[in-house]
């Protein structure tokens, strides 16, 4: 980003629109985390754009005093891709809910990820449809009883990080709305990444799915239930790091007691590994937010960014053929003169 960026405060990044989420909604803390973080990123408000779809989460852009678009349900990744390709000079963030980005918008999301276009994609996962008053979502657990599934839902939920890695994502992380510092760290890392960065934020919808993540995000539960991934470090958790993750002889990851298995047996987290297999395996460690769940950066690898490459092709074309000459173009097919 450009130098001599004026120093700003949270206030500078807060729009004048009153925030309209339910009291106690997890979206508030995510908003605060970002508004407090932006001044630290050394970016300009005018070069920052938030694009969203539709949903409670998708109201996000209205509250950031940047450029923004509250578009239509599910299409934010596609719209943002066009913007980022047209304007590689901008910081483009995409915000949406689990329905917005994994249900109706699933295809745009996975294509944005494989394209590795320079978008910072924040998925607010509350495992429910909030704005439409509480139907189950693609991340809702099996058997979820909602207005649309009075006898329980039948579909196996998506694991958003598995989907992202299966879709060739270059940056994949997870955080949650109860830990501002961790959210900010993830957002900062995502912002540093050149390319599509996907961050899943566990977000509590206290009206329609209250406590969905309580078992792992409660202060007193975190030590035992959150597995902090740190690149280059053996994967450990528990109050005194007494538990860890190791690769079993059968090639499957498992949680082990460190004193039994020994520290050397622990898997050392390598977020930069080209091969996504291990990162994928880590996404499978917990089958839901009720088992010890990895958070942090699962994957962060370098791959050419889409808009830059497109830009490079334009430059190359001008190199080879000179800047476009309209008169010449109109004469580029066989011509003849009538006098």
């Amino acid at each position, binding site marked *: 980003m450009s130098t001599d960026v004026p120093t700003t405060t949270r206030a500078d990044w807060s*729009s004048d*629109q009153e925030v309209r989420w339910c009291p106690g909604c997890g979206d508030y803390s995510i908003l605060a985390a970002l508004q407090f973080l932006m001044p630290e990123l050394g970016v*300009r*408000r*005018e*070069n*920052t*754009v*938030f*694009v969203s779809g*539709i949903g409670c989460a998708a109201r996000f*852009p*209205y509250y*950031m*005093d*940047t*450029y*923004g*678009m*509250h*578009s*239509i349900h599910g*299409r934010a990744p*596609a*719209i*943002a*891709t*066009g*913007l*980022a*390709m*047209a*304007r590689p*000079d*901008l910081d483009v963030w995409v915000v949406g809910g689990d329905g917005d980005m994994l249900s109706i918008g699933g*295809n*745009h999301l996975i*294509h944005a990820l494989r394209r590795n276009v320079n978008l910072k994609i924040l998925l607010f996962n509350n495992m429910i449809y909030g704005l439409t008053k509480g139907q189950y979502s693609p991340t809702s657990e099996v058997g979820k009883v909602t207005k649309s599934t009075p006898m329980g839902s039948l579909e196996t939920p998506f694991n958003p990080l598995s989907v992202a890695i299966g879709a060739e994502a270059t940056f994949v992380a997870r955080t949650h709305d109860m830990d501002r510092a961790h959210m900010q760290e993830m957002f900062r890392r995502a912002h540093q990444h050149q390319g599509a960065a996907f961050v899943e934020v566990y977000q509590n919808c206290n009206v329609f799915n209250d406590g969905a993540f309580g078992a792992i995000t409660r202060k007193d539960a975190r030590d035992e239930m959150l597995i902090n991934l740190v690149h280059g470090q053996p994967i450990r958790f528990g109050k005194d790091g007494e538990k860890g993750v190791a690769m079993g002889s059968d090639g499957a990851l498992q949680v082990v007691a460190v004193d039994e298995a020994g520290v050397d047996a622990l898997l050392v987290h390598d977020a930069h590994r080209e091969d996504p297999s291990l990162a994928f395996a880590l996404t499978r460690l917990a089958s839901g937010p009720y088992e010890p769940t990895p958070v942090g950066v699962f994957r962060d690898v370098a791959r050419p960014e889409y808009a830059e490459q*497109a830009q490079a092709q*334009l430059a*190359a*074309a*001008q190199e*080879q*053929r*000179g*800047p*476009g000459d*309209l*008169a010449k*173009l*109109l*004469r580029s*097919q*066989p*011509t*003849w*003169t*009538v*006098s």
Partner: protein
Amino acid sequence: MTDTAAHGSVREVDRLIIRFAGDSGDGMQLTGDRFTSASALFGNDLATLPEFPAEIRAPAGTLAGVSSFQVHISDHDITTPGDAPTVLVAMNPAALKADLDKLERGGTVIVNEDAFEERNLTKAGYAGNPLDDDTLAAYTVIRVPMTSLTKEACKALDVKPRDAERSKNFFALGLVSWMFSRPVEPTLDWINQRFKGRDTVIAANTTAFQAGHAYGETAELADSHVMVRPAKLPPGLYTQINGNTALAWGLVAASQQAQIPLFLGSYPITPASDILHELSKHKNFGVRTMQAEDEIAAAGAALGASFGGHIGVTTTSGPGVALKSETIGLAVSLELPLVVVDIQRGGPSTGLPTKTEAADLLLAMFGRHGESPLPIVAAYSPTHCFWAAIEATRIALTYRTPVILLSDGYLANGTEPWRIPDLSELPAIPVTFATEPNHVGPDGEPVYWPYLRDENLIRPWAVPGTPGLEHRIGGLEKEDGSGNVSYDPANHSRMVHLRAERIAHIATDIPPVEVTGDVDADVLVLGWGSTWGAIETACERVRATGQKVAHAHLVHLNPFPPNLGEVLGRHRTVLVPELNLGQLVRLVRDRYLVDAKSITKVFGQPFTAAELTDAILGEMR
């Protein structure tokens, strides 16, 4: 020319319609194309009509596999690919079967004799051999063993017979080139160009072409030796161009005129794909093309680019327009420029993907939920696609609105000579971005209101990167002026009306519709889109019968030109020919309460001038 003039008696005719028909594999499109180019360079006026199956390569020898190319060349100004061909080149029985009924009575059939054997005949559904029975009694038949002659000619070269056989279309081309006195150099040059590096192919094709040409000279075809003199077209530099290329160039030209980069978001679909292909070649114009995952993403990406200060364009055909509806509705609400190009094809659903139709007008007009008005522009000829693209882009940029540009499969692939305009002939497209606050906030400090309109109801366009003008826009109803989300009932009503007036107001910025022919005629033919050529010719023929008829053709379908009502009022009868079941006719009947009558055709083919002449004369009785 000299070399053709050289040979003996050449009968002169003022026009010729030739139809090349053969198997998808026989290269008929290429053959027709080459003949057309040669005629263009020779200076004829011309119009073409390519037709091919929906399959990449339908089964050889079958009717379904027939691919044909009709070209109309003349020594005067023409507007259609012609009605009944005077000459049919049939490379196999299926081609003869499929197209013979189109040939004019007494016309000439040139057949590749070799192809008329058992298997092909049955595949084509012929009991006997039409060359031997009286199927062709009514026509002049020229039987030429093209395959064997081609193989024979290529013996000298070291090409396998099977490969040599492939060159038989060049033999046909050579033969017709001689018959109709086409210059040979352009074709020979083209062969060398096109197959550069593949010497044997060049050799085979050249040899076949020359063999065909020689065959004409030597065989007793003298009385078929015909010539069509160059047309007296307005002076200038000409090129031959099809509608999709012209449309793509028009988009580039508009972007240049406006000094706004062009962004194309598209998803391949027949018959629109070629615009994507063409634009992706012009990256040196700063043209960005993105093949999206689907049509919705294509439109979305284009809209995102427009938000970023580019001119977003998305090209597709009917099914894609249906899918883009919701995104276009968002563009209406955001009041951002967006050009949506619909190359119409036969519907409904997948319909007839490679055939032409013009049945998306009402979709363009009404295909969005809520009150969601937008301007509609329609091209009326292959070359007009260039100008229509510029006009659509001009309106989108000037009025910050999505515009739907309608073309169709016939215009897309049809070609005609085009006098290349001087750049000074192109309209200026001034676009200014907002750079300053345009209002004062409650506490007296300057603020930017994205929906504070000017006298033309146009909202300012501030692009990301502009300090101080940060703002948010979205699909929820917005407060007039500030653009903040508003659920106020009165505000909603105001905004709905403002959006409608904004589009209606564009009528003041478009040319009045012109009436050609007899302004005092009782009968006015009101057209839009690709029916223009057929209507013009039909009207001439009607006049030739001593009757009066006028023609008005709409380029702007929404809003209508301000004088349209007055024009319609001047004529007792209004006829509206359309390649659908009557769509424009509904709009004018509703708007002007005139008892306009519909003339429709939904055969996946353009009107012929003859059909329209009959229809118009019929209405006069």
